[in-house]
């Protein structure tokens, strides 16, 4: 019955077989892992070293995983209990000091090496550069606002515009709970914490538009707390900043798309259903005329019925002033007064008063 | 039904083997105290962040901590540690009167401490709403006060039992274990007093 189970002298044979299988599987695994297109497009200098670190980690990790799985599968395949072996016991091996030292020391060395490398990468991506542009990022439930220094003043925008190849230093702040400023294309992320300034650096190096995501749970609108970053040529950026400056003189910063000035005539219904920033009204409120049926906020057909324009205006600007029954304060964003231009606001108020009469 | 006949001889579990010289109750209390120390540790973390890391004025500007009263209070609590030790020594010797007097004094000293502490809250002139420093002050002293209260409850039971004639020179774990807890409450107070009032 013991015939099939060989003596300890066969150990080298097994190890040799295992090593062969392991090397082949690891090689396949590494190739596969590297072929996967893991990351979103990279649009900042910071991305490259991180992506490389990632690849190195994959190359190290795959063999470790393969090692564990192969030994398990090989042992099961080779030494599974066969009929007639029900009462057999394995050899009483209690340990092997040399082996134990090896598998303590090797991973330790490997890990310390990885840490050193990771530290170098960290240092690299967070290094302060000359000619850095400052942008202040402010998170609030549930919107981002970006402030640019302009002489002694600050210009605000809801979209982030950055010039190509210029290092940017973001100072991140929060008005209420925690948020997290994340630009996947830049591979940078940092929490916005009320009461302190946090910061992060990136050097955009690819023209295009990429998402800005809030990555820290901040309540109801967390999933919708997104914005866009536009990486543009430096001349375009200057032009945009100029427009922003004149827009700021004329009115509050504009909401939504493009970053152009406020349109002269405002389509209040579109504003209600899709384009109001940070969150379009219709995604939370029901309004028969606009055909929306959100339930997060109160049904406007009911709560605004017969209300004055002043009341409606107040409800948009200071949502917590009057709270409809059954709803909790603090859920509706409190920055529409800033994010909507006066023209938009009054159009919206007029529209709402009209359709809920 | 052989099994039944076996059980008929055994009306209880077998005697457990004592694999350690430490008494289970004592060990349990010590471990519990480690847990308690960690609860304080967490509150001290809050203290550390709000006082040390942020570097703000301590206590908040305009607030004043009554150091003298607190010092007197500290003396009261520390002396209660001695009286309960005395009670335990008496219990070991079989001195019933000493045990009763010791327990009663300890209890009253503890009660006085708690009373003075509450009185201090009333007259201190700031509330936890005013500043984070005040929150930490009330948090730490309040947490300690809660422990004094728990300790007093235990002491009350021990005192009652001592007057009912429990505890003998051989059997006085009921004094010893709450006593350890009371010492812990004392030592904790000395730490709270030093960090919150003195430093």
């Amino acid at each position: 019955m013991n015939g099939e189970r060989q003596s300890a002298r066969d150990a080298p044979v097994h190890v040799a077989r295992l090593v062969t299988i392991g090397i082949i599987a690891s090689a396949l695994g590494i190739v596969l892992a590297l072929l996967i297109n893991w990351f979103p497009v990279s649009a900042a200098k910071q991305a490259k070293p991180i992506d490389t670190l990632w690849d190195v980690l994959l190359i190290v990790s795959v063999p470790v995983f393969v090692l564990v799985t192969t030994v398990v599968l090989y042992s099961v395949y080779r030494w599974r209990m066969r009929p007639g072996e029900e009462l057999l016991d394995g050899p009483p091996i209690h340990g092997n000091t040399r082996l134990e030292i090896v598998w303590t020391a090797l991973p330790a060395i490997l890990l310390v090496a990885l840490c050193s490398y990771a530290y170098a990468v960290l240092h690299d991506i967070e290094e302060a550069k000359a000619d850095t542009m400052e942008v202040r990022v402010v998170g609030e439930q549930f919107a981002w606002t970006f402030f640019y220094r302009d002489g002694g003043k600050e210009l605000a925008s809801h979209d982030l515009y950055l010039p190509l190849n210029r290092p940017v230093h973001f100072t991140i702040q929060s008005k209420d709970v925690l948020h997290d400023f994340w630009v996947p294309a830049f591979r940078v992320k940092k929490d916005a914490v009320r009461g302190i300034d946090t910061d992060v650096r990136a050097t955009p190096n690819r023209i295009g538009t990429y998402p800005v995501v809030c990555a820290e749970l901040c309540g109801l609108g967390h999933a919708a707390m997104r914005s866009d970053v536009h990486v543009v040529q430096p001349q375009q950026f200057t032009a945009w900043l100029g427009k922003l400056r004149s827009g700021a003189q004329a009115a509050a910063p504009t909401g939504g798309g493009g970053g152009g000035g406020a349109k002269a005539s405002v389509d209040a219904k579109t504003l209600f259903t899709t384009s109001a920033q940070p969150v379009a009204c219709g995604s939370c409120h029901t309004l028969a005329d606009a055909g929306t049926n959100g339930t997060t906020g109160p049904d406007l057909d009911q709560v605004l019925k017969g209300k004055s324009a002043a009341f409606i205006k107040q409800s948009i600007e200071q949502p917590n002033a009057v709270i409809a029954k059954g709803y909790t304060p603090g859920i509706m964003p409190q920055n529409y007064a800033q994010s909507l231009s006066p023209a938009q606001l009054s159009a919206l108020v007029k529209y709402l008063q009209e359709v809920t009469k | 039904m052989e099994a039944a006949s076996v059980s008929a001889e055994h009306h209880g579990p077998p005697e457990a083997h004592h694999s350690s010289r430490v008494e289970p109750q004592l060990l349990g209390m010590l471990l519990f105290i480690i847990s308690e120390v960690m609860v304080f540790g967490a509150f001290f973390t809050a203290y550390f962040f709000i006082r040390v890391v942020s570097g703000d004025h301590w206590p908040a500007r305009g607030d004043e901590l009554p150091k003298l009263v607190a010092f007197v209070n500290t003396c009261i609590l520390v002396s209660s540690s001695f009286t309960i030790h005395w009670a335990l020594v008496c219990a070991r010797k079989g001195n019933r009167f000493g045990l009763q007097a010791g327990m009663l004094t300890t209890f009253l000293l503890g009660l006085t401490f708690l009373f003075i502490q509450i009185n201090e809250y009333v007259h201190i002139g700031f509330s936890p709403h005013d500043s984070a420093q005040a929150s930490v002050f009330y948090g730490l002293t309040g947490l300690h006060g809660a422990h004094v209260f728990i300790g007093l409850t235990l002491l009350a039971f021990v005192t009652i039992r001592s007057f009912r004639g429990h505890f003998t020179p051989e059997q006085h774990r009921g004094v010893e274990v709450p006593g350890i807890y009371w010492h812990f409450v004392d030592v904790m107070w000395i730490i709270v007093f030093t960090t919150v009032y003195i430093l």
Partner: protein
Amino acid sequence: MTATAQHSPASSHRSPSPTGGSRSRFRSPGHVRALLFLVLGVLFAAALVIAVRALYGFPIAADGKVTTATQDGILLVSLIAAPLFWLVGLGAFDYWFYWAAGRKTRPEDHSSHGAHSWRDYLRVNTDHKVIGIQYVCTSFIFMLIGGMLAMVIRAELAAPGRQFVDASAYNGLFSVHASLMIFLFIIPIFAGLANYVLPLMIGAPDMAFPRLNALSFWMLPIAGTMMVASFLAPGGSFATGWTAYAPLSTDAPIGQMFFTIGVQFAGASSIATALNFLVTIITMRAPGMSFWRMPLLVWANFSTSLLVVIATPFIAASQFLVLLDYALGFNFFVPEKGGDILMYQHVFWFYSHPAVYIMMLPGFGIVSEVLSVKSRKPIFGYRMMAFSLLAIVLLGFTVWAHHMFVSGMQGWIRVPMMITTAIIAVPTGIKIFSWLATLWRGVIHLDTPMLFALGFLCMFSLGGISGVMLAMVPVDIHVSDTYFIVAHIHYVLFGGSLFTIFAGVYYWFPKMTGRMFDDRLGKLHFWLTFVAFNATFAPMHLIGVEGMPRRVSDYPEQFAGWNLFISLASFVLGLSTLVFLYNMITSWRGGPRAPANPWRSLTMEWQVSSPPPIFNFDKVPTVVGGPYEYGVPDAQHGIFTAPASEESKSSHPSREARA
């Protein structure tokens, strides 16, 4: 129908005497009195809140209706008071009241040991074996609820946009899901399994503090019910994740308090159990059972209990701080008043990182038992296995800030934390490699417990490796708070902890119930779970790195394909649990009788009958050797005196005859 103990049931002294009538039902400890006290607790809370508000001159009612603030106040105080009253009513403190007041205590007549019908599992009982089963069943109930919530999560995420629930309900779903799984499933079920087998393994007749043990158990249903009931709270359930970060949590609807306070009960329960384990292990080992002869499961629970005793107070305190800010207007987390928001995270993770090892070390213990027995070989490097557990305990306290790499804390802390975090892989690696060496040249019995143990080896390694990637700060900066983290969580918690739980439940099922389970169904369960588990959670790595944040009810179109796939796979994963349930229930009711030692194991719980006698042993056995001496001719671990071993052999035919 269930595990009837083998001693002849002396049923006369069990059930409450029928002559007492309803009045004594209200007075004697039990569920009736508990219910009464529960109501009293709520009334007490209401009275207290109204009195205090009146004292301070706050309005109690307006327009003929009780104000919201008053309602919330009463609810909040009830959450604390009602459970305590309920426990008093249940009789959890009776003995201590009597003892403390110096009244004559009822001498322990051991009448409440053992269980004779399934109803006995619903009563307060101080027998560690009954409590063990109570723990395991209760935990699985909460696992099913938590799993159902996961199914709703996946249904909502099956497609972009809104499917079934709105954003606030969604936030509640994953918060309750995770809280139940962590605080009411993984942590307590390990405590339950150990409760059952640990005293048997070390040759103790029971735990050191049987009454405390019962109290620990009865705090669990409180915590669990509270968390589930939070869905009924005005404003919805707590919705801030299981991490409950301030200031979102200090400024949330009242449902948040169901978490804050529920966690206190769960935490108190685990601290009490940990104390109990430590004292039991230190003071109640059988003669000859030196520390170096203890089974690794005992070592694992020893280490875990150390972690619990030291770390769990921190989560209690973190929630105290939230409670104080929330209810009494303290300013711990109000920066405008000098508070510090990041302090919450430091306190929370100082517990919650060790907590992840609290959720893994007992599993390591289970796997050590199963692997050694099922490959018929001694554990490779026994002492290093024990030392590595202790090393993990120590290192576990030095890594908490790896959850805060992007939190905005002082930057320099990240570097030492990165190194300690990575180094934790070394003792864990020692364990993995030693298990592999244990398999090597064994006689591998590939039945259900073993399959799960082997599945654990592979899946946990994967989860651990993704953990090491997370430890590398630059990588974590990109993937923190994405689905990559969700993948890591489930690989270590499901592929790690839950696989070991399945292994342990199958392994000790014969001991606990006296019945054999259906191995074919068990294998079906394993394969379904294994495949569906990987199909569910592996793709999460991909979408995470690609940019999908966690904790969102809606996501961009680009992730739609994978999410649909994940959702479908997760439903299969859910269904695979039904196979397990079916197997457990039918086998418990009508499976073939289990012999005392079906696995030919050496550890002592297998040397007594299945299920064990009421008092475990007639006489405490003597230990003469290590627990894993498989393959050593005539090896012995425990020596039993004649009556006990005779009983364990001979009681079977007689029970067979009775059945």
